[in-house]
């Protein structure tokens, strides 16, 4: 048994590895780049989910931009006011008040509310349904498909499919916007947390068509618009929209809606 044939390479490789390791370690300390203290503090104040909702690559990217003064201190949609205040204190400025936003799914059609064209057995992903006939088994082509792509995407466990339609948990939602990106029907949007009355339908079909397809869809009758004391509700393309900057949450529209499409949030 020739032990030196094993030992020599072992020692040489160990020595080389050790040298490289120590060398890189020392170089790492010697060439350490000073990171802005503010940047580190801001990074600590951020939630650290790395969700990308702010539009920067992760929390570190946002921290860098804030420390450089390229992004406002309240850029983080997840942290909201407390985080914005903390960062403002670090940066020595005051945060502008931001309105808390939440995601909202503009569809409320449960399984019993709408008609189906056919049964679908296939990949359980909403985005796949653009490949199947009629954009999915439901008669309504604008409504929630209910396969929960948004639910799988949500990093905060704040959106769930309940009885065939996605519902946002308003307290858990951090308005990061992930679900908005993945929803192939573009049903989800950010609305102010304070807005109490929302139109839970996106159908742009004419009234009679919607009437046949869905028990709770907006038929564009315009009763809400006529009854709104502030003219905050408008009906365009057979679908009602509420202007949140005008709406005072009086609830008249929801009361008068014959289809109960306008829902009160709680």
């Amino acid at each position, binding site marked *: 048994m020739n032990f030196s044939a094993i030992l020599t*390479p072992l020692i*040489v490789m160990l020595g*080389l590895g050790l040298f*490289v390791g120590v060398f*890189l370690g020392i170089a*790492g300390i010697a*060439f350490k780049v000073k990171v802005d203290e503010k940047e580190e503090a801001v990074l600590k104040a951020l939630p650290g989910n790395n969700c990308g909702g702010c539009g920067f690559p992760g929390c570190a990217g946002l921290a860098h931009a804030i420390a450089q003064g390229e992004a406002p201190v309240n850029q983080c949609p997840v942290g909201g006011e407390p985080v914005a205040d903390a960062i403002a204190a670090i940066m020595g400025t005051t945060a502008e008040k931001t309105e808390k936003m939440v995601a909202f799914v503009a569809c409320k059609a449960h399984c019993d509310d709408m008609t189906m064209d056919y049964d679908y057995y296939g990949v359980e992903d909403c985005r796949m349904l653009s490949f199947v006939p009629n954009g999915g088994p439901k008669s309504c082509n604008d409504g929630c498909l209910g396969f929960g792509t948004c639910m799988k995407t949500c990093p905060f466990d704040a959106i769930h499919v309940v009885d065939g339609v996605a519902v946002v948990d308003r307290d858990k939602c951090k308005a990061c916007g992930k679900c908005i990106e993945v929803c192939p029907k573009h049903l989800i949007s950010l609305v102010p947390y304070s807005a109490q009355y929302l139109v839970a339908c996106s159908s742009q079909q004419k009234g009679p068509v919607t009437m046949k397809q869905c028990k709770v869809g907006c038929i564009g009758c315009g009763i809400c618009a006529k009854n709104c004391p502030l003219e905050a509700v408008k009906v365009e393309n057979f679908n009602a929209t509420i202007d949140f900057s005008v709406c005072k949450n009086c609830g008249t529209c929801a009361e008068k809606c014959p289809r109960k499409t306008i829902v009160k949030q709680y």
Partner: protein
Amino acid sequence: MIKNLIVLSLGSALINNVVLSQFLGLCPFLGVSKKVKTALGMGGAVIFVITLASIVTGLIYKGLLVTFDLTYLKTIVFILVIAALVQFVEMFLKRFVPSLYSALGVYLPLITTNCAVLGIAITNVQKDYSILEGTVNGFATAVGFTIAIVILAGIREKMQYNDIPKAFRGMPIVLVSAGLMAIAFCGFAGLL
């Protein structure tokens, strides 16, 4: 001597082009050749790292491995050394030349996985080059890589406006172009 080096560098830059005739470093060649600007950045980083790696691996091979009769370990030792070298170069540039660091950006760490670097180190050993020859060979090879990737990037930039048959869109037409480039580079074979 100098004539030898010139012949050597012409040979490794054009005739035995690292991508087009040795098929090394294809991943960055196809991956980073969408724009001439980024291709140039990648080429610059490759020149920098291959030249350095040729010197260092040459020294280690001649000084360490040959002395201890461990030449069979060259592959693993070279991988280790190249990875460490790229790391060190990255740290060094970040500290002292931040402008170059941000210009090279993500391409610098990407080079660790570029098989051309290891390929050159091993070619140097196999052909029994001296350290000077090995360095020149490494530099010229990297220049050849830069030439190839910049030409391909230029072709791809122009190709965006062409009406390409549907089946060929994307990677297929790039590979076809790369193949045609390789055939064109065969023309250099009669140069020496």
